[in-house]
């Protein structure tokens, strides 16, 4: 008997069937999840979204004191006589890092956090990590606003080497890359956290270390040339340095390295999607 069905559920698993089209049909749900995250986070708080500003502000102040004043680490990505306020330097790194780390960490837990809903009803599971990636963008944009305000302040005040250049147009692209990268990395780990909860501890710990392997607390200039080859393979590095270049108008840029970082981002995202897709089918039996 050969009957035609609009949809077939079988035990077979197509590795490359990523349900992307179906996920797109659920775009309303993605935005509702984002909205839910936002409203539920700031309900019954007085300062509301202002809280988003406080975290990077505090960690930037700490960085200025510890790495800037006490350790006196360089903030230069390239050699040269540039004048850059430390505060602005650390803040640029911190807001990017906060976005990356929170998105990554939440994505790794996406199955665990949503198991109650996912265990009861079907929707394309990719909806959840995508909505996480977007909803983390809201505090990031607020923080970026604070950063831009400070940046404008220094720009108008003068006395620094900051200039506006066409590089500024790269910012949206950088943000996009950051989104894809943090989600992709999170997806890979999420596939394993359903089985091994200890990975979650490892993630928190690993992030703490990774932070110091990125040029956030110091400029790229601090990294010896002999290490550079490996160092820039971390796709976060070109994002951070290019982000600074875009805003400050001077800094480090290497087109080849930047393109590599996109390739790495792409591979991570693709592998992440594959892992996620494989886990998605049966994770309810394991979790």
């Amino acid at each position, binding site marked *: 008997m050969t009957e035609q*069905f*609009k949809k077939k*559920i079988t035990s077979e698993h197509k590795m490359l069937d990523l349900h992307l089209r179906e996920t797109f049909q659920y775009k309303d749900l993605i935005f509702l999840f984002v909205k839910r995250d936002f409203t539920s986070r700031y309900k019954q708080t007085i300062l509301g979204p202002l809280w988003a500003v406080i975290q990077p502000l505090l960690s930037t102040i700490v960085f200025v004191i510890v790495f800037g004043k006490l350790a006196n680490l360089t903030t230069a990505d390239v050699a040269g006589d540039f004048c850059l306020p430390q505060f602005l330097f650390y803040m640029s790194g911190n807001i990017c890092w906060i976005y990356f780390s929170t998105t990554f960490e939440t994505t790794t837990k996406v199955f665990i956090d949503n198991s109650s809903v996912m265990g009861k*009803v*079907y929707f394309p599971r990719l909806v959840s990590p995508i909505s996480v990636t977007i909803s983390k963008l809201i505090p990031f944009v607020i923080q970026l606003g604070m950063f831009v305000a400070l940046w404008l302040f220094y720009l108008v005040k003068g006395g620094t080497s900051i200039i506006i250049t066409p590089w500024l147009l790269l910012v949206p692209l950088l943000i996009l890359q950051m989104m894809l990268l943090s989600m992709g990395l999170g997806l890979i780990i999420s596939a394993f956290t359903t089985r*091994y909860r*200890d*990975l979650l501890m490892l993630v928190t710990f690993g992030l703490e270390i990774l932070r110091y392997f990125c040029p956030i607390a110091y400029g790229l200039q601090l990294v010896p040339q002999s290490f550079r080859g490996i160092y820039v393979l971390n796709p976060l590095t070109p994002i951070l340095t290019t982000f600074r270049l875009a805003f400050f108008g001077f800094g480090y840029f290497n087109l080849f390295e930047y393109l590599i970082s996109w390739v790495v981002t792409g591979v991570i995202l693709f592998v992440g999607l594959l892992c996620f897709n494989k886990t998605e089918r049966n994770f309810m039996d394991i979790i």
Partner: protein
Amino acid sequence: MVIMKVENLSKVYMLGQIAQTTLRDAFQRLGAKAQGKKDPTRPIGQDFVHGELFTALDDVSFTINKGERIGIIGHNGAGKSTLIKLISQVTAPTDGMIGLNGRVASMLEVGTGFHLELTGRENIYMNGAILGMRKSEIDEKIEDIIEFSECRKFIDTPVKRYSSGMFVKLGFAVAAHLDSEIVIMDEVLAVGDMAFQKKCLDKMNELSRDKGKTILYVSHNMGTIRRLCNRVIVLEKGHLIYDGEVEAGIECYMGSTRKLELVNTYEDENRHSGDGQIWINQSCFLDKTGFPIFYKGENIRIGVDFKAEKAFDDLAFRWVIYSSADVSVGMATTKSDIRVEQGDNHINTELNIDWLSPGKYIVYLAAYSVDVYGNAAIHDMVTDAFVFEKVLMVDENNRMDWHHNEWGYVMFPEIKHMTKE
């Protein structure tokens, strides 16, 4: 038109702890495997870590046509929930195929994805979207949904302030307005007050009759199955044992626990309730051979063996008689003047059931005593104590079958007619 086809569907679960899997164990296993050693994380005295397999659903096949209202019944662990989960794509089958010709909306729980901090209105959007509705669809229906939920007054209040009843009503209201062709419900109607339950059932009936929706309903409540469904599927231990007409299916499901037996013993403590001063051991039908089947004019005679913790002089027994559809039909009691000694006792009882309509009945047997104010103290009650069947004589009731739904459970004596001579 075929809307759903299930073919040779199976689902196998692994028994035991799947998550002996901290990362360390996984590495140890991997290492041991590489060296060809035995698995070091294996519990002592057990040869297989990945223990036995449990087949929750075994080679189940059926076809559902558009507009059918299917009840899925079976005991706990029969595979009902697994079947529903597979159809609603929460987890993937181990083997077999499900073909669908329409969207599936599954209500395995009321108010899936409700967020306590959001208002009722926001949660309608949230819940609707999770169940697969587009925002524009919800916009169109939001007024109907609010109206149906009876929560208009509180619709802009966060749901954490709702009573549990309102929560359920809101959840059901959303699901009832889904546009999907197939609606799956897992016993969610068991909550909410009677009026709302009735409203829900009516709504489901209306959806299937007027809009041609297909409904899959899982429940242990045979009353709602009867009212809602026009076909039942009975599962037992992962197998499909019956598929077809409602009454026969329910009989098939009930039959496995409620058999017609002459002697019934009550060792299972779960069947007893009461203060424990009396313990009913056994009951048996007297003067019967074969099966406890009764015709017109026959009385039920039952002998009861029981143990008393102390002596009574005011003990009474009562039978609460249920129909096979779990509807309480009536109660009969002895006088409360039975004298018993402490220790083992035996008593014979007899009941006239001439007025009982034909059918299968289940009796809950209780021993109790009543104080001067009319308050009863139940000393022991046994559920499903014994089952009997009343059968029509050939010439009774003008040779018609008895329809319980229309005629109830009392068959009055024949009406006398006085024809003019």
